[in-house]
Protein backbone atom coordinates (compact mmCIF):
# COMPACT_ATOMS: atom_id res chain seq x y z
CA UNK A 1 0.00 0.00 0.00
CA UNK A 2 1.18 3.50 -0.73
CA UNK A 3 -0.06 6.66 0.81
CA UNK A 4 0.78 9.93 -0.89
CA UNK A 5 0.44 13.38 0.59
CA UNK A 6 -2.61 12.57 2.64
CA UNK A 7 -4.35 15.47 4.27
CA UNK A 8 -7.36 15.08 6.52
CA UNK A 9 -9.25 17.99 7.93
CA UNK A 10 -12.05 18.31 10.43
CA UNK A 11 -14.37 21.10 9.49
CA UNK A 12 -15.80 22.13 12.80
CA UNK A 13 -17.79 25.17 13.82
CA UNK A 14 -14.72 26.65 15.39
CA UNK A 15 -12.55 26.27 12.37
CA UNK A 16 -10.71 23.77 10.26
CA UNK A 17 -8.51 21.36 12.09
CA UNK A 18 -5.81 19.67 10.10
CA UNK A 19 -5.58 16.34 11.80
CA UNK A 20 -3.25 14.87 9.24
CA UNK A 21 -1.12 16.91 6.90
CA UNK A 22 0.85 15.91 3.89
CA UNK A 23 1.61 12.42 5.01
CA UNK A 24 3.25 9.86 2.76
CA UNK A 25 4.51 6.38 3.41
CA UNK A 26 4.48 2.92 1.96
CA UNK A 27 3.71 -0.41 3.44
CA UNK A 28 5.23 -3.61 2.18
CA UNK A 29 3.72 -7.02 2.30
CA UNK A 30 3.91 -8.62 5.76
CA UNK A 31 5.57 -5.55 7.16
CA UNK A 32 4.75 -4.18 10.57
CA UNK A 33 4.57 -0.44 10.78
CA UNK A 34 4.36 1.28 14.11
CA UNK A 35 2.66 4.67 14.20
CA UNK A 36 3.49 6.55 17.35
CA UNK A 37 2.13 9.80 18.60
CA UNK A 38 0.36 11.57 21.44
CA UNK A 39 -3.39 12.02 21.56
CA UNK A 40 -4.27 14.55 18.96
CA UNK A 41 -1.31 13.71 16.79
CA UNK A 42 -3.64 12.42 14.14
CA UNK A 43 -2.68 8.79 14.26
CA UNK A 44 -6.19 7.45 14.72
CA UNK A 45 -7.44 9.69 11.97
CA UNK A 46 -4.73 8.30 9.77
CA UNK A 47 -5.84 4.79 10.53
CA UNK A 48 -9.47 5.50 9.79
CA UNK A 49 -8.66 7.30 6.60
CA UNK A 50 -7.05 4.19 5.22
CA UNK A 51 -10.52 2.73 4.93
CA UNK A 52 -12.19 6.07 4.33
CA UNK A 53 -14.12 6.03 7.57
CA UNK A 54 -13.12 9.36 8.96
CA UNK A 55 -16.08 10.45 11.09
CA UNK A 56 -18.06 13.55 10.30
CA UNK A 57 -17.10 16.46 10.27
CA UNK A 58 -13.78 15.14 9.08
CA UNK A 59 -12.94 14.77 5.48
CA UNK A 60 -9.97 13.74 3.45
CA UNK A 61 -9.08 16.82 1.52
CA UNK A 62 -5.96 15.80 -0.33
CA UNK A 63 -3.86 12.82 -1.16
CA UNK A 64 -4.03 9.34 -2.51
CA UNK A 65 -4.15 5.92 -0.99
CA UNK A 66 -3.17 3.14 -3.33
CA UNK A 67 -3.68 -0.48 -2.49
CA UNK A 68 -2.82 -3.15 -5.01
CA UNK A 69 -3.06 -0.67 -7.86
CA UNK A 70 -6.42 0.67 -6.83
CA UNK A 71 -7.05 4.10 -5.44
CA UNK A 72 -8.92 3.57 -2.23
CA UNK A 73 -10.41 7.01 -2.02
CA UNK A 74 -11.90 6.81 -5.46
CA UNK A 75 -13.60 3.47 -5.02
CA UNK A 76 -17.30 3.09 -5.49
CA UNK A 77 -19.34 2.49 -2.38
CA UNK A 78 -19.69 -1.22 -2.92
CA UNK A 79 -16.05 -1.74 -3.75
CA UNK A 80 -15.09 0.20 -0.68
CA UNK A 81 -17.34 -1.98 1.39
CA UNK A 82 -15.66 -5.00 -0.04
CA UNK A 83 -12.34 -3.60 0.88
CA UNK A 84 -13.26 -3.12 4.47
CA UNK A 85 -13.24 -6.24 6.51
CA UNK A 86 -11.72 -8.22 3.72
CA UNK A 87 -8.59 -6.50 2.45
CA UNK A 88 -8.00 -3.98 5.15
CA UNK A 89 -9.30 -4.69 8.61
CA UNK A 90 -9.52 -2.37 11.51
CA UNK A 91 -9.21 -3.29 15.15
CA UNK A 92 -10.66 -0.59 17.36
CA UNK A 93 -9.30 0.81 20.49
CA UNK A 94 -12.02 0.09 22.97
CA UNK A 95 -13.24 -3.48 22.94
CA UNK A 96 -15.97 -2.63 25.40
CA UNK A 97 -17.92 -0.63 22.93
CA UNK A 98 -16.90 -2.05 19.61
CA UNK A 99 -19.05 -5.14 19.56
CA UNK A 100 -22.79 -5.15 19.06
CA UNK A 101 -24.25 -5.81 22.49
CA UNK A 102 -27.30 -7.62 21.20
CA UNK A 103 -25.52 -10.08 18.96
CA UNK A 104 -23.76 -13.24 19.96
CA UNK A 105 -20.09 -13.59 19.16
CA UNK A 106 -20.79 -16.30 16.68
CA UNK A 107 -23.31 -14.09 14.94
CA UNK A 108 -20.70 -11.40 14.53
CA UNK A 109 -18.53 -13.82 12.64
CA UNK A 110 -21.29 -15.31 10.59
CA UNK A 111 -22.48 -11.89 9.58
CA UNK A 112 -19.01 -10.82 8.60
CA UNK A 113 -18.22 -13.89 6.58
CA UNK A 114 -21.54 -14.07 4.84
CA UNK A 115 -21.51 -10.41 3.94
CA UNK A 116 -18.30 -10.79 2.05
CA UNK A 117 -18.71 -14.33 0.86
CA UNK A 118 -22.43 -14.88 0.50
CA UNK A 119 -22.07 -18.38 -0.84
CA UNK A 120 -20.78 -19.63 2.48
CA UNK A 121 -23.40 -21.43 4.54
CA UNK A 122 -24.07 -20.65 8.14
CA UNK A 123 -22.50 -23.86 9.34
CA UNK A 124 -19.41 -23.23 7.26
CA UNK A 125 -19.14 -19.77 8.68
CA UNK A 126 -19.49 -21.06 12.21
CA UNK A 127 -16.77 -23.61 11.58
CA UNK A 128 -14.46 -20.90 10.42
CA UNK A 129 -15.44 -18.80 13.38
CA UNK A 130 -14.46 -21.60 15.71
CA UNK A 131 -11.09 -21.80 14.04
CA UNK A 132 -10.59 -18.08 14.43
CA UNK A 133 -11.42 -18.21 18.09
CA UNK A 134 -8.88 -20.96 18.57
CA UNK A 135 -6.29 -18.93 16.74
CA UNK A 136 -6.80 -15.99 19.03
CA UNK A 137 -6.86 -18.18 22.08
CA UNK A 138 -10.50 -18.31 23.05
CA UNK A 139 -12.47 -21.46 23.66
CA UNK A 140 -14.89 -22.12 20.80
CA UNK A 141 -17.82 -22.48 23.17
CA UNK A 142 -17.72 -18.75 23.57
CA UNK A 143 -19.35 -18.40 20.22
CA UNK A 144 -22.67 -18.49 21.95
CA UNK A 145 -21.93 -15.76 24.39
CA UNK A 146 -22.84 -12.12 24.21
CA UNK A 147 -20.12 -9.48 24.30
CA UNK A 148 -20.84 -8.38 27.82
CA UNK A 149 -20.16 -11.87 29.07
CA UNK A 150 -16.55 -11.66 28.00
CA UNK A 151 -13.69 -9.86 29.65
CA UNK A 152 -11.96 -6.93 28.01
CA UNK A 153 -9.01 -8.96 26.88
CA UNK A 154 -11.23 -11.58 25.36
CA UNK A 155 -13.29 -9.02 23.58
CA UNK A 156 -10.19 -7.55 22.06
CA UNK A 157 -9.21 -11.00 20.92
CA UNK A 158 -12.60 -11.37 19.31
CA UNK A 159 -12.08 -8.09 17.51
CA UNK A 160 -8.74 -9.33 16.27
CA UNK A 161 -10.31 -12.59 15.27
CA UNK A 162 -12.92 -10.73 13.28
CA UNK A 163 -10.20 -8.70 11.68
CA UNK A 164 -8.22 -11.64 10.38
CA UNK A 165 -11.14 -13.91 9.61
CA UNK A 166 -11.07 -13.15 5.93
CA UNK A 167 -7.32 -13.15 5.55
CA UNK A 168 -6.76 -9.50 4.82
CA UNK A 169 -3.63 -7.99 3.41
CA UNK A 170 -3.49 -5.29 6.02
CA UNK A 171 -4.64 -5.09 9.61
CA UNK A 172 -4.77 -1.72 11.29
CA UNK A 173 -4.79 -1.96 15.06
CA UNK A 174 -5.63 1.30 16.79
CA UNK A 175 -4.29 1.30 20.30
CA UNK A 176 -5.21 -2.33 20.68
CA UNK A 177 -4.02 -2.49 24.21
CA UNK A 178 -4.72 0.87 25.73
CA UNK A 179 -7.98 -0.21 27.27
CA UNK A 180 -6.46 -3.34 28.76
CA UNK A 181 -4.28 -4.02 31.74
CA UNK A 182 -0.58 -4.51 31.34
CA UNK A 183 -0.36 -8.26 31.47
CA UNK A 184 -3.02 -8.71 28.89
CA UNK A 185 -1.38 -6.07 26.75
CA UNK A 186 1.69 -8.15 26.18
CA UNK A 187 -0.36 -11.19 25.32
CA UNK A 188 -2.40 -9.34 22.77
CA UNK A 189 0.65 -7.87 21.11
CA UNK A 190 2.29 -11.24 20.93
CA UNK A 191 -0.86 -12.61 19.46
CA UNK A 192 -0.83 -10.00 16.75
CA UNK A 193 2.70 -10.90 15.87
CA UNK A 194 1.99 -14.59 15.77
CA UNK A 195 -0.96 -14.05 13.54
CA UNK A 196 1.01 -11.84 11.29
CA UNK A 197 3.58 -14.55 10.82
CA UNK A 198 0.96 -17.18 10.32
CA UNK A 199 -1.19 -15.26 7.88
CA UNK A 200 1.40 -13.15 6.14
CA UNK A 201 -0.40 -9.89 6.50
CA UNK A 202 0.89 -6.40 6.99
CA UNK A 203 0.21 -4.82 10.33
CA UNK A 204 -0.11 -1.18 11.25
CA UNK A 205 0.16 -0.69 14.98
CA UNK A 206 -1.09 2.65 16.16
CA UNK A 207 -0.10 3.59 19.66
CA UNK A 208 1.15 6.34 21.91
CA UNK A 209 3.61 4.03 23.53
CA UNK A 210 6.89 3.88 21.66
CA UNK A 211 8.10 0.96 23.70
CA UNK A 212 5.42 -1.28 22.30
CA UNK A 213 6.45 -0.82 18.72
CA UNK A 214 10.19 -0.63 19.10
CA UNK A 215 10.60 -4.35 19.29
CA UNK A 216 7.69 -5.51 17.30
CA UNK A 217 7.70 -3.46 14.17
CA UNK A 218 9.86 -3.26 11.12
CA UNK A 219 9.45 0.44 10.58
CA UNK A 220 8.21 3.20 12.79
CA UNK A 221 6.49 6.46 11.96
CA UNK A 222 6.44 9.16 14.57
CA UNK A 223 3.64 11.68 14.35
CA UNK A 224 3.21 15.02 15.95
CA UNK A 225 0.30 17.39 15.51
CA UNK A 226 -0.70 15.88 12.21
CA UNK A 227 2.76 15.79 10.72
CA UNK A 228 4.98 12.83 10.23
CA UNK A 229 8.13 13.96 11.96
CA UNK A 230 10.25 10.87 11.59
CA UNK A 231 10.00 7.69 9.57
CA UNK A 232 12.63 4.97 9.70
CA UNK A 233 13.25 1.29 10.39
CA UNK A 234 12.77 0.64 14.07
CA UNK A 235 16.39 -0.24 14.66
CA UNK A 236 17.30 3.16 13.37
CA UNK A 237 14.76 4.83 15.58
CA UNK A 238 16.13 3.04 18.56
CA UNK A 239 19.78 3.57 17.91
CA UNK A 240 19.78 6.75 15.92
CA UNK A 241 16.74 8.91 16.58
CA UNK A 242 17.05 12.17 14.73
CA UNK A 243 14.03 14.25 15.51
CA UNK A 244 14.05 15.93 18.92
CA UNK A 245 10.58 14.63 19.59
CA UNK A 246 11.58 11.06 18.93
CA UNK A 247 14.58 11.51 21.13
CA UNK A 248 12.36 12.83 23.85
CA UNK A 249 10.05 9.87 23.51
CA UNK A 250 12.88 7.44 23.81
CA UNK A 251 14.21 9.13 26.86
CA UNK A 252 10.89 8.84 28.61
CA UNK A 253 10.76 5.08 28.36
CA UNK A 254 11.71 3.53 31.64
CA UNK A 255 14.51 1.08 31.22
CA UNK A 256 14.59 -1.62 33.78
CA UNK A 257 18.25 -2.32 33.27
CA UNK A 258 19.50 1.10 34.06
CA UNK A 259 19.60 1.36 37.79
CA UNK A 260 19.94 5.03 38.09
CA UNK A 261 17.78 6.55 35.46
CA UNK A 262 15.90 9.79 35.57
CA UNK A 263 12.79 9.85 33.48
CA UNK A 264 12.82 12.84 31.28
CA UNK A 265 9.55 14.20 30.15
CA UNK A 266 9.19 16.35 27.10
CA UNK A 267 8.62 19.93 28.06
CA UNK A 268 5.36 21.62 27.28
CA UNK A 269 2.03 20.13 26.37
CA UNK A 270 0.38 18.95 23.16
CA UNK A 271 -0.57 21.74 20.81
CA UNK A 272 -4.01 23.14 20.32
CA UNK A 273 -4.87 22.04 16.83
CA UNK A 274 -6.93 25.14 16.22
CA UNK A 275 -4.06 27.40 17.04
CA UNK A 276 -1.00 25.74 15.67
CA UNK A 277 2.25 27.60 16.09
CA UNK A 278 3.77 29.05 12.97
CA UNK A 279 6.74 27.27 11.56
CA UNK A 280 7.67 23.88 12.85
CA UNK A 281 4.83 22.58 14.95
CA UNK A 282 7.14 21.21 17.55
CA UNK A 283 9.28 24.23 18.19
CA UNK A 284 7.63 25.37 21.48
CA UNK A 285 8.74 22.13 23.07
CA UNK A 286 11.98 21.58 21.26
CA UNK A 287 15.17 21.81 23.23
CA UNK A 288 17.13 23.00 20.25
CA UNK A 289 14.78 25.17 18.32
CA UNK A 290 16.37 28.08 16.54
CA UNK A 291 14.98 31.18 14.86
CA UNK A 292 14.18 29.50 11.64
CA UNK A 293 12.04 26.89 13.32
CA UNK A 294 9.66 29.52 14.55
CA UNK A 295 8.73 30.86 11.18
CA UNK A 296 9.25 28.14 8.64
CA UNK A 297 7.85 24.64 8.67
CA UNK A 298 10.55 22.14 7.88
CA UNK A 299 10.01 19.68 5.03
CA UNK A 300 10.72 16.00 5.25
CA UNK A 301 14.42 15.42 4.81
CA UNK A 302 16.24 12.24 4.00
CA UNK A 303 18.70 11.61 6.74
CA UNK A 304 19.96 8.17 5.92
CA UNK A 305 18.84 5.07 4.08
CA UNK A 306 15.12 4.93 4.44
CA UNK A 307 15.31 7.39 7.25
CA UNK A 308 13.26 10.59 6.97
CA UNK A 309 13.07 13.40 9.44
CA UNK A 310 11.18 16.63 9.49
CA UNK A 311 13.63 18.94 11.17
CA UNK A 312 15.91 21.77 10.15
CA UNK A 313 18.75 20.23 12.06
CA UNK A 314 19.41 17.97 9.15
CA UNK A 315 19.06 20.34 6.35
CA UNK A 316 22.19 19.38 4.62
CA UNK A 317 20.55 16.17 3.52
CA UNK A 318 18.45 16.12 0.37
CA UNK A 319 14.80 16.88 0.62
CA UNK A 320 12.67 13.75 0.54
Amino acid at each position, binding site marked *: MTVEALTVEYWTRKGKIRAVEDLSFSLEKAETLGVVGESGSGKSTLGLSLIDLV*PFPGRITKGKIILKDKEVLKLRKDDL*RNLRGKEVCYV*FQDPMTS*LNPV*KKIGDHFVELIRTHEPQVTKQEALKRAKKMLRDVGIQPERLNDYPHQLSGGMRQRVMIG*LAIALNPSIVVADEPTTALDVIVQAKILDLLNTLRDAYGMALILITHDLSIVLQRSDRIMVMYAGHMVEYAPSIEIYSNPKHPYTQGLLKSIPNIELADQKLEAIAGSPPDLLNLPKGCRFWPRCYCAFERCRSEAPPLITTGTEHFTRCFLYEEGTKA
Partner: protein
Amino acid sequence: MRVLPGDPVLLHFEKMENPAAMAAMRARLGLDKPLWFQYFDYVVGIFRGDLGLSMQDYSPVAQQIFSAFPATLELAICSMIIAVLVGVFLGVESSKAYNKPKDQVIRVFGIVTYAIPIFFLGMIFQMIFGVGLHWLPVGGRISPTMEPTGLNIGNFHFSTGLFTIDSLLEGNIYKFVLTLKYLFLPSLTLGLVLCGIFIRLTRSNMLETLRLDFVTAAKARGLKETTVTYSYALRNAFLPVLTMMGLQFAMLLGGAVLTETTFSWPGLGRYLVDRINFRDYTAIQGAVVVFGIFVALVSLAIDLLYAYLDPRIRL
Protein backbone atom coordinates in the same frame (compact mmCIF):
# COMPACT_ATOMS: atom_id res chain seq x y z
CA MET B 1 -50.06 4.11 37.15
CA ARG B 2 -52.71 6.28 35.74
CA VAL B 3 -55.72 7.40 37.65
CA LEU B 4 -59.03 7.67 35.93
CA PRO B 5 -59.95 11.30 35.72
CA GLY B 6 -63.09 11.80 37.70
CA ASP B 7 -65.92 13.48 35.96
CA PRO B 8 -68.06 15.26 38.49
CA VAL B 9 -68.01 18.23 36.18
CA LEU B 10 -70.03 16.41 33.62
CA LEU B 11 -72.81 15.93 36.02
CA HIS B 12 -73.48 19.59 36.35
CA PHE B 13 -75.26 20.06 33.13
CA GLU B 14 -78.90 20.31 32.59
CA LYS B 15 -79.37 22.19 29.42
CA MET B 16 -82.40 20.86 27.86
CA GLU B 17 -85.41 22.16 26.13
CA ASN B 18 -88.75 21.96 27.82
CA PRO B 19 -89.32 21.62 31.52
CA ALA B 20 -91.97 18.95 31.58
CA ALA B 21 -90.01 16.67 29.37
CA MET B 22 -87.02 17.48 31.48
CA ALA B 23 -88.75 16.42 34.62
CA ALA B 24 -89.88 13.21 33.08
CA MET B 25 -86.46 12.46 31.76
CA ARG B 26 -84.90 13.23 35.06
CA ALA B 27 -87.08 10.82 36.80
CA ARG B 28 -86.48 8.15 34.24
CA LEU B 29 -82.75 8.54 34.27
CA GLY B 30 -82.43 8.90 37.97
CA LEU B 31 -81.10 12.40 37.63
CA ASP B 32 -83.38 13.79 40.25
CA LYS B 33 -81.52 12.08 42.97
CA PRO B 34 -78.89 14.00 44.93
CA LEU B 35 -75.61 14.66 43.15
CA TRP B 36 -73.33 12.55 45.25
CA PHE B 37 -75.67 9.64 44.88
CA GLN B 38 -75.64 10.02 41.15
CA TYR B 39 -71.88 10.06 41.02
CA PHE B 40 -71.52 7.03 43.21
CA ASP B 41 -74.20 5.17 41.36
CA TYR B 42 -72.60 5.96 38.07
CA VAL B 43 -69.18 4.80 39.07
CA VAL B 44 -70.58 1.56 40.37
CA GLY B 45 -72.48 1.27 37.17
CA ILE B 46 -69.30 1.51 35.18
CA PHE B 47 -67.99 -1.58 36.81
CA ARG B 48 -71.19 -3.37 36.14
CA GLY B 49 -71.02 -2.31 32.54
CA ASP B 50 -73.97 0.01 32.86
CA LEU B 51 -73.48 3.47 31.51
CA GLY B 52 -76.93 4.78 31.80
CA LEU B 53 -79.59 5.31 29.22
CA SER B 54 -79.41 7.49 26.20
CA MET B 55 -81.42 10.64 26.44
CA GLN B 56 -82.55 10.31 22.96
CA ASP B 57 -84.18 6.96 22.97
CA TYR B 58 -83.56 5.52 26.38
CA SER B 59 -81.58 2.61 25.06
CA PRO B 60 -78.58 1.54 27.05
CA VAL B 61 -75.59 3.68 26.32
CA ALA B 62 -73.22 0.88 27.05
CA GLN B 63 -74.59 -1.18 24.24
CA GLN B 64 -74.34 1.63 21.75
CA ILE B 65 -70.80 2.32 22.76
CA PHE B 66 -69.91 -1.30 22.64
CA SER B 67 -71.06 -1.64 19.08
CA ALA B 68 -69.25 1.46 17.97
CA PHE B 69 -66.03 0.65 19.73
CA PRO B 70 -64.42 -1.91 17.41
CA ALA B 71 -64.52 0.51 14.54
CA THR B 72 -62.52 3.01 16.49
CA LEU B 73 -60.16 0.32 17.67
CA GLU B 74 -59.48 -0.77 14.14
CA LEU B 75 -58.90 2.77 13.01
CA ALA B 76 -56.65 3.49 15.95
CA ILE B 77 -54.50 0.45 15.42
CA CYS B 78 -54.08 1.03 11.73
CA SER B 79 -53.31 4.68 12.16
CA MET B 80 -50.75 3.96 14.83
CA ILE B 81 -49.11 1.37 12.62
CA ILE B 82 -48.90 3.83 9.77
CA ALA B 83 -47.62 6.58 12.04
CA VAL B 84 -44.90 4.38 13.46
CA LEU B 85 -43.84 2.83 10.18
CA VAL B 86 -43.70 6.10 8.30
CA GLY B 87 -42.27 7.98 11.25
CA VAL B 88 -39.53 5.51 12.04
CA PHE B 89 -38.54 5.02 8.44
CA LEU B 90 -38.34 8.74 7.77
CA GLY B 91 -36.55 9.25 11.06
CA VAL B 92 -33.91 6.74 10.08
CA GLU B 93 -33.45 8.27 6.65
CA SER B 94 -33.27 11.67 8.21
CA SER B 95 -30.59 10.68 10.66
CA LYS B 96 -28.50 9.08 7.97
CA ALA B 97 -28.52 12.27 5.94
CA TYR B 98 -27.71 14.43 8.92
CA ASN B 99 -27.96 18.12 8.11
CA LYS B 100 -28.13 17.47 4.42
CA PRO B 101 -31.15 18.66 2.42
CA LYS B 102 -32.96 15.34 2.82
CA ASP B 103 -32.76 15.68 6.55
CA GLN B 104 -34.18 19.20 6.55
CA VAL B 105 -36.97 18.27 4.21
CA ILE B 106 -38.03 15.35 6.35
CA ARG B 107 -37.92 17.41 9.49
CA VAL B 108 -40.00 20.13 7.93
CA PHE B 109 -42.42 17.51 6.72
CA GLY B 110 -42.81 16.23 10.26
CA ILE B 111 -43.49 19.71 11.55
CA VAL B 112 -45.93 20.59 8.83
CA THR B 113 -47.99 17.45 9.15
CA TYR B 114 -48.55 18.22 12.78
CA ALA B 115 -49.78 21.69 11.96
CA ILE B 116 -52.41 20.46 9.56
CA PRO B 117 -55.86 20.13 11.06
CA ILE B 118 -56.75 16.48 10.78
CA PHE B 119 -60.08 17.07 9.24
CA PHE B 120 -58.58 19.32 6.64
CA LEU B 121 -56.09 16.70 5.60
CA GLY B 122 -58.87 14.16 5.54
CA MET B 123 -60.95 16.35 3.31
CA ILE B 124 -58.08 16.98 0.96
CA PHE B 125 -57.58 13.27 0.64
CA GLN B 126 -61.25 12.80 0.05
CA MET B 127 -61.14 15.35 -2.70
CA ILE B 128 -58.09 13.97 -4.40
CA PHE B 129 -58.62 10.29 -4.05
CA GLY B 130 -62.33 10.07 -3.75
CA VAL B 131 -63.75 12.73 -5.94
CA GLY B 132 -60.91 13.54 -8.22
CA LEU B 133 -59.45 10.18 -8.93
CA HIS B 134 -62.25 7.91 -7.88
CA TRP B 135 -59.81 5.42 -6.54
CA LEU B 136 -61.01 5.12 -3.01
CA PRO B 137 -64.30 5.47 -1.22
CA VAL B 138 -64.94 8.68 0.52
CA GLY B 139 -66.72 7.65 3.64
CA GLY B 140 -68.11 4.91 5.72
CA ARG B 141 -66.57 1.71 6.79
CA ILE B 142 -67.92 -0.68 4.26
CA SER B 143 -70.99 -1.05 2.14
CA PRO B 144 -73.79 -2.51 4.21
CA THR B 145 -74.06 -5.84 2.52
CA MET B 146 -70.43 -6.60 2.67
CA GLU B 147 -69.78 -6.63 6.37
CA PRO B 148 -67.46 -9.45 7.29
CA THR B 149 -69.04 -11.93 9.59
CA GLY B 150 -66.06 -13.60 11.07
CA LEU B 151 -65.48 -17.22 11.69
CA ASN B 152 -68.44 -19.46 11.16
CA ILE B 153 -68.06 -23.15 11.71
CA GLY B 154 -71.38 -24.80 12.09
CA ASN B 155 -72.94 -23.19 15.11
CA PHE B 156 -69.76 -21.65 16.35
CA HIS B 157 -69.49 -17.99 15.63
CA PHE B 158 -66.58 -15.77 16.42
CA SER B 159 -65.93 -12.26 15.31
CA THR B 160 -63.72 -9.56 16.65
CA GLY B 161 -65.54 -6.61 15.26
CA LEU B 162 -62.38 -5.71 13.44
CA PHE B 163 -63.29 -6.06 9.84
CA THR B 164 -59.79 -6.76 8.69
CA ILE B 165 -59.48 -9.76 10.91
CA ASP B 166 -63.06 -10.86 10.51
CA SER B 167 -62.89 -10.93 6.76
CA LEU B 168 -59.77 -13.04 6.95
CA LEU B 169 -61.40 -15.33 9.46
CA GLU B 170 -64.24 -15.67 7.07
CA GLY B 171 -61.83 -16.51 4.34
CA ASN B 172 -63.23 -13.86 2.08
CA ILE B 173 -60.46 -12.05 0.30
CA TYR B 174 -62.77 -9.76 -1.55
CA LYS B 175 -64.19 -8.42 1.67
CA PHE B 176 -60.71 -8.07 3.03
CA VAL B 177 -59.59 -5.93 0.14
CA LEU B 178 -62.76 -3.91 0.36
CA THR B 179 -62.21 -3.31 4.05
CA LEU B 180 -58.74 -2.08 3.37
CA LYS B 181 -59.97 0.28 0.74
CA TYR B 182 -62.28 1.94 3.19
CA LEU B 183 -59.75 1.82 5.97
CA PHE B 184 -56.91 3.29 4.02
CA LEU B 185 -57.68 6.98 3.82
CA PRO B 186 -58.85 7.52 7.39
CA SER B 187 -55.87 5.74 8.89
CA LEU B 188 -53.50 7.42 6.49
CA THR B 189 -54.83 10.80 7.54
CA LEU B 190 -54.58 10.12 11.23
CA GLY B 191 -51.27 8.35 10.87
CA LEU B 192 -49.63 11.14 8.93
CA VAL B 193 -50.61 13.78 11.42
CA LEU B 194 -49.09 11.72 14.21
CA CYS B 195 -45.93 10.56 12.47
CA GLY B 196 -44.10 13.81 13.07
CA ILE B 197 -43.27 13.00 16.63
CA PHE B 198 -41.98 9.58 15.68
CA ILE B 199 -39.78 11.08 13.04
CA ARG B 200 -38.26 13.38 15.57
CA LEU B 201 -37.82 10.70 18.20
CA THR B 202 -36.30 8.15 15.88
CA ARG B 203 -34.04 10.72 14.36
CA SER B 204 -32.55 11.86 17.62
CA ASN B 205 -32.16 8.33 18.94
CA MET B 206 -30.52 7.19 15.75
CA LEU B 207 -28.18 10.14 15.71
CA GLU B 208 -26.98 9.13 19.13
CA THR B 209 -26.72 5.47 18.35
CA LEU B 210 -25.00 5.97 15.03
CA ARG B 211 -22.17 7.68 16.80
CA LEU B 212 -21.46 4.72 18.96
CA ASP B 213 -18.30 2.76 18.43
CA PHE B 214 -19.81 -0.52 17.48
CA VAL B 215 -21.56 1.08 14.58
CA THR B 216 -18.28 2.41 13.21
CA ALA B 217 -16.73 -0.96 13.90
CA ALA B 218 -19.47 -2.63 11.92
CA LYS B 219 -18.90 -0.28 9.03
CA ALA B 220 -15.19 -1.00 9.25
CA ARG B 221 -15.97 -4.65 8.77
CA GLY B 222 -17.60 -3.78 5.52
CA LEU B 223 -21.14 -4.71 6.48
CA LYS B 224 -23.91 -3.53 4.25
CA GLU B 225 -25.42 -0.20 5.06
CA THR B 226 -28.92 -1.54 5.50
CA THR B 227 -27.64 -4.14 7.90
CA VAL B 228 -25.79 -1.58 9.90
CA THR B 229 -28.68 0.80 10.01
CA TYR B 230 -31.41 -1.58 10.82
CA SER B 231 -30.07 -4.41 12.82
CA TYR B 232 -27.47 -2.44 14.66
CA ALA B 233 -28.62 1.05 15.26
CA LEU B 234 -32.35 0.65 15.13
CA ARG B 235 -32.52 -2.28 17.48
CA ASN B 236 -31.12 -0.10 20.14
CA ALA B 237 -33.28 2.89 19.44
CA PHE B 238 -36.54 1.04 19.40
CA LEU B 239 -37.64 0.98 22.98
CA PRO B 240 -38.34 4.70 23.25
CA VAL B 241 -40.55 4.38 20.22
CA LEU B 242 -42.65 1.90 22.09
CA THR B 243 -43.09 4.18 25.05
CA MET B 244 -43.94 7.01 22.75
CA MET B 245 -46.61 4.91 21.15
CA GLY B 246 -48.29 4.66 24.49
CA LEU B 247 -47.98 8.34 25.17
CA GLN B 248 -49.33 9.25 21.78
CA PHE B 249 -52.34 7.11 22.22
CA ALA B 250 -54.31 9.85 23.86
CA MET B 251 -53.63 12.12 20.93
CA LEU B 252 -54.64 9.34 18.64
CA LEU B 253 -58.04 9.09 20.19
CA GLY B 254 -58.57 12.80 20.04
CA GLY B 255 -57.67 12.75 16.40
CA ALA B 256 -59.90 9.76 15.87
CA VAL B 257 -62.89 11.85 16.78
CA LEU B 258 -62.15 14.27 14.00
CA THR B 259 -61.17 11.61 11.52
CA GLU B 260 -64.28 9.61 12.12
CA THR B 261 -66.41 12.67 11.65
CA THR B 262 -64.70 13.54 8.41
CA PHE B 263 -64.95 10.08 6.95
CA SER B 264 -68.26 9.12 8.47
CA TRP B 265 -66.48 6.29 10.12
CA PRO B 266 -68.92 4.61 12.50
CA GLY B 267 -66.73 4.59 15.55
CA LEU B 268 -66.85 5.96 19.03
CA GLY B 269 -65.65 9.35 17.91
CA ARG B 270 -68.44 9.86 15.49
CA TYR B 271 -70.84 8.56 18.08
CA LEU B 272 -69.64 11.23 20.41
CA VAL B 273 -70.12 13.98 17.87
CA ASP B 274 -73.53 12.73 16.90
CA ARG B 275 -74.63 12.65 20.48
CA ILE B 276 -73.40 16.18 20.93
CA ASN B 277 -75.68 17.34 18.23
CA PHE B 278 -78.54 15.64 19.99
CA ARG B 279 -77.51 16.96 23.34
CA ASP B 280 -77.63 13.44 24.62
CA TYR B 281 -75.63 14.02 27.69
CA THR B 282 -75.68 10.59 29.21
CA ALA B 283 -74.39 9.16 26.00
CA ILE B 284 -71.70 11.79 25.79
CA GLN B 285 -70.72 11.17 29.34
CA GLY B 286 -70.54 7.47 28.68
CA ALA B 287 -68.39 7.98 25.62
CA VAL B 288 -66.01 10.26 27.42
CA VAL B 289 -65.68 7.83 30.26
CA VAL B 290 -64.98 5.00 27.89
CA PHE B 291 -62.32 7.05 26.16
CA GLY B 292 -60.75 7.72 29.49
CA ILE B 293 -60.76 4.08 30.47
CA PHE B 294 -59.34 3.12 27.14
CA VAL B 295 -56.43 5.49 27.46
CA ALA B 296 -55.77 4.40 31.00
CA LEU B 297 -55.72 0.76 30.01
CA VAL B 298 -53.37 1.33 27.13
CA SER B 299 -51.01 3.35 29.29
CA LEU B 300 -51.06 0.60 31.84
CA ALA B 301 -50.31 -1.97 29.20
CA ILE B 302 -47.38 0.03 27.90
CA ASP B 303 -46.03 0.51 31.41
CA LEU B 304 -46.18 -3.22 32.00
CA LEU B 305 -44.68 -4.00 28.64
CA TYR B 306 -41.82 -1.64 29.29
CA ALA B 307 -41.11 -3.15 32.67
CA TYR B 308 -41.11 -6.54 31.08
CA LEU B 309 -38.83 -5.67 28.22
CA ASP B 310 -36.39 -3.47 30.03
CA PRO B 311 -34.44 -5.86 32.23
CA ARG B 312 -34.45 -8.28 29.36
CA ILE B 313 -32.75 -5.80 27.13
CA ARG B 314 -30.00 -5.68 29.70
CA LEU B 315 -29.40 -9.25 28.65
